[in-house]
């Protein structure tokens, strides 16, 4: 009948999804939002399935969000902590994953500092692989939960203007968001110092701005990114003080956006660095709703990926 079906075995990045896939994930997530408001926050959809959280980078919110999502779907979940694992004893990533797979999990959620590592896993693993952030590449569930938040506010995820401000160069969140919004036909501007916002990003269809007021003008969404000091972002501009002077969001800058505009931030936020303290707590800020939506989006992704054993790609 030519009817659309969601046919992804893995979630490696937004790049691999069609706009219809994105719509399906968001619609499914919208249905899951309700479950988290019930007294009994659990449904039996993934009963008997096993999800492994394989995190090679520090993460509290993404890891716990996946953990809660899996548990609300009645899946069993194992947290695999790299700092106490055999990787410290010299085991390779491939051997670690093969060892885990010998225990027959259905879905592996991986975060790793090497871009492309989730794809690498699909070449030999039989589980469904979910990318929870790989290097500077993608963080698809973050972009999806951002999109869900926008959809709740604007009732649509098309025809929007999205401004992303900050360290675009090192941000997998920015990359996944740019790809997602270009796929949905939205306008994307990226704003920051030239050292962190290379012209190269114009190839992805984003407009580059070095002046925040210009870039934010008329946008529906202003998405602030954290200054990632731990990734050496401090070397790309002279001082935090100067960065804040030019690229922090405050009431004056935000007034350039549409009246109905909202502020988003993937967290953790640095108050009074990239975002004005009072603005972060204002009713224009959807930062906490993003966290809540993270659970619904991750439930949707876990549900939609079959989690049955797949043939490795190679």
């Amino acid at each position, binding site marked *: 009948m030519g009817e659309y*079906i*969601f*046919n992804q075995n893995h979630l490696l990045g937004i790049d691999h999804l069609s706009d219809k896939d994105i719509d*399906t994930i968001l*619609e*499914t997530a*919208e*249905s*899951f939002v*309700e*479950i988290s408001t*019930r*007294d*009994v926050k*659990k*449904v*039996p*959809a993934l009963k*008997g399935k096993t999800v492994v959280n394989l995190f090679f980078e520090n993460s509290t919110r993404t890891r716990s969000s996946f953990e809660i999502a899996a548990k609300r*779907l009645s899946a069993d979940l194992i947290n695999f902590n790299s700092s106490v694992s055999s990787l410290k004893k010299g085991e390779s990533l491939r051997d670690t994953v093969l060892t885990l797979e010998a225990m027959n999990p259905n879905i592996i959620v991986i975060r790793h500092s090497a871009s492309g590592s989730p794809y690498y896993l699909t070449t030999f693993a039989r589980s469904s692989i979910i990318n929870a952030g790989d290097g500077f590449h993608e963080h698809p569930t973050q972009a999806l939960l951002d999109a869900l938040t926008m959809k709740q506010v604007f009732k649509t995820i098309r025809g929007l203007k999205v401004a992303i401000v900050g360290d675009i160069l090192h941000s997998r969140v920015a990359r996944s968001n740019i790809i997602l919004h270009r796929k949905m036909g939205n306008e994307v501007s990226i704003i920051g110092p030239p050292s962190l916002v290379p012209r190269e990003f114009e190839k992805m269809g984003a407009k580059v701005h070095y002046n925040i007021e210009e870039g934010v003008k008329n946008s529906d969404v202003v998405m602030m990114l954290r200054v990632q000091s731990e990734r050496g972002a401090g070397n790309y501009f002279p001082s935090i003080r100067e960065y804040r002077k030019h690229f922090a969001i405050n009431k004056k800058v935000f007034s350039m956006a549409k009246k109905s505009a909202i502020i988003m931030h993937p967290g953790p936020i640095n108050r009074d660095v990239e975002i004005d303290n009072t603005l972060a707590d204002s009713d224009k800020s959807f930062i906490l709703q993003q966290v809540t939506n993270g659970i619904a989006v991750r439930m949707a992704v876990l*549900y*939609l990926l*079959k989690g*049955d054993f797949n043939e490795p790609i190679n």
Partner: protein
Amino acid sequence: MEEKIKAKIMDEKKMMRAFQRMAVEILENNRVVENLVLIGIQKKGVYVAERIKKLIEEMENIKMPTGILDITLFRDDLHKHEQQPIIQKTEINFSVEDKDIVLIDDVLFTGRTIRAAMDSIFELGRPASVQLAVFIDRGHRELPISPDYKGKYLPTSRRERVNVMLKEIDDVDQVLIMEPTRF
């Protein structure tokens, strides 16, 4: 699968009478109308529930709380599907605790949907009672479930399909039996 119409079982008039009788029977069986709530099962059960709700509201001059239930996540055949079925909205904006619930669906067949619906409802609270209203009971039960109210009992063969068509989505009120064109 291609299918063709085998027979037209009910027209608008017959359906209207059946809806009315079901609404009256529900009221007769439940002395305390204030404790009654209706829950329609996605997808067509929702429309059947809306019809019955309207009739009860007209007769009793009350507001009848009516919810929508999607049972997908409670299905017993989720692991058997090639693709995961699309999830629809569950919208029950009232507490089910100690309520007399009438579960409503368009067609009762194996009974597995109702089993899933009951599991789903008991996650929301402990109702005083659960009753079942279906517009067509077509037989072939695989579970010990039987309707308290039905529009019509319609013996069918397993390979047939009963199509309850409603104006709200199908532009016409009628009940058809469909059969596959090829075997």
